[in-house]
């Protein structure tokens, strides 16, 4: 239970940042941050203010092979067990995803809004149980453009964040918070890595997920196709 009283809320956020909560309670906080901006800003407050305490841990040399392991893992696209994150199956509140344009109109937008290099990839992201697309994602050589196509807006005080999900990578990659105009341009993106990827849009605090992983419900999802 996340308290509404601001002192209680601050104390809980402080306990979370101090690392005092057990795993289940910590997950509850992370989930709640997506829809509770007061909680999210309380967590940011503590994270920033307490950070200088890290200086009390003396620096130490990591084992020499550590960088090579990181580098190899990134290069291999993290070939460990593919496992869908838990949020994937979360039932999401779709209330705000009002029906809008149909798929045909979205494809028309594709023609109008194609990036200068011409799209090489396209994905229509829909609510899992619905046909109506909420976002259209296009990828050119070096750019991704995500565009709201049916007037999809996040709940009040929340933001949409775009994620790439790679087939052999366990964690989604954050691509950015979608601005209020519903159009996100991700420049200088190496789109060659997108083969087999899917995109998802989740509901997050205004500045984006505070944990670097989706914390709110995934409201739109779709697989990328090469065109």
């Amino acid at each position, binding site marked *: 239970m996340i308290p509404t009283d601001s002192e209680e809320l601050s104390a809980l956020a402080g306990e979370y*940042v101090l690392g*005092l909560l057990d795993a289940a309670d910590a997950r509850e906080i992370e989930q709640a941050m997506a829809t509770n901006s007061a909680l999210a800003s309380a967590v940011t407050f503590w994270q920033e203010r307490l950070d200088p305490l*890290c200086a*009390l841990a003396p620096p130490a040399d990591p084992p020499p092979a550590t*960088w090579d*392991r*990181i*580098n190899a893992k990134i290069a291999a696209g993290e070939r460990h067990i593919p496992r869908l994150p838990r949020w994937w199956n979360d039932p999401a509140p779709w209330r705000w995803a009002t029906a809008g344009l149909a798929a045909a109109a979205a494809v028309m937008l594709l023609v109008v809004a194609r990036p200068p290099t011409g799209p090489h990839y396209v994905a229509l992201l829909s609510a899992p149980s619905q046909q109506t697309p909420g976002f259209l994602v296009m990828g050119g050589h070096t750019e991704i453009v995500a565009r709201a196509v049916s007037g999809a807006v996040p709940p009040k005080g929340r933001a949409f964040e775009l994620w790439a999900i790679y087939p052999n990578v366990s964690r989604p990659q954050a691509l950015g918070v979608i601005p209020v105009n519903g159009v996100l341009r*991700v420049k200088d993106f190496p789109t060659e890595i997108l083969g087999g990827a899917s995109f998802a849009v989740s509901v997050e605090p205004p500045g984006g997920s505070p944990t670097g992983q989706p914390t709110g419900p995934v409201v739109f999802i779709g697989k990328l196709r090469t065109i």
Partner: protein
Amino acid sequence: MGAVVSDTVADRGTDGRVTALSSAATLVEAIGRGSRIALKRLYDLESKRLYGIALRIVRRPEVAADVLQEAFIQIWQNARSYSPERGAAQAWLTGIVRFRALDAVRKTGREVLSGDPALGDAAEEPDVIERIGAEAEASALRRCLGLLDDIQRRLVVLAFVDGYSHSEIAERIAEPLGTVKSRIRRGLAALKTCLAP
């Protein structure tokens, strides 16, 4: 294979600026654009500090190395979502490392809980407040920690720096769990009042 090709492309794109990359925020931004060179520079600059933070919490070098590895992969994957409005890059980085380390401790437990001479040594030292740096944000924290009583201050350090849970702290300072919880809450309330803008 795609990742290898993309890295070449991305690094070529930022090559010209690489020598100018120095601050954590600039590096994180470059990592967000896909620069593996920037990730390596961040590792060179920050890995000792971040490893020290992880080691302090998990205690075992091999676990700390795993934590550092997971943290850098998470940094690589999520740098694009970092923006300065979400706080200082340093706090963003240490947040990732601390929560990965706490996850590891919660999952596997800590090998040694008591009788380890290294345990909580920072918290035991009288000059703890003096050691948290001279930067502006650190001086506010130092001033505010100075308002807490010795036990409250020690509890904050045991939690944040050593990653102790409520019950581990209770065991360590031999006080009932409820007392520890309310002491920490009072400490947090005092810090909040002092640190709030």
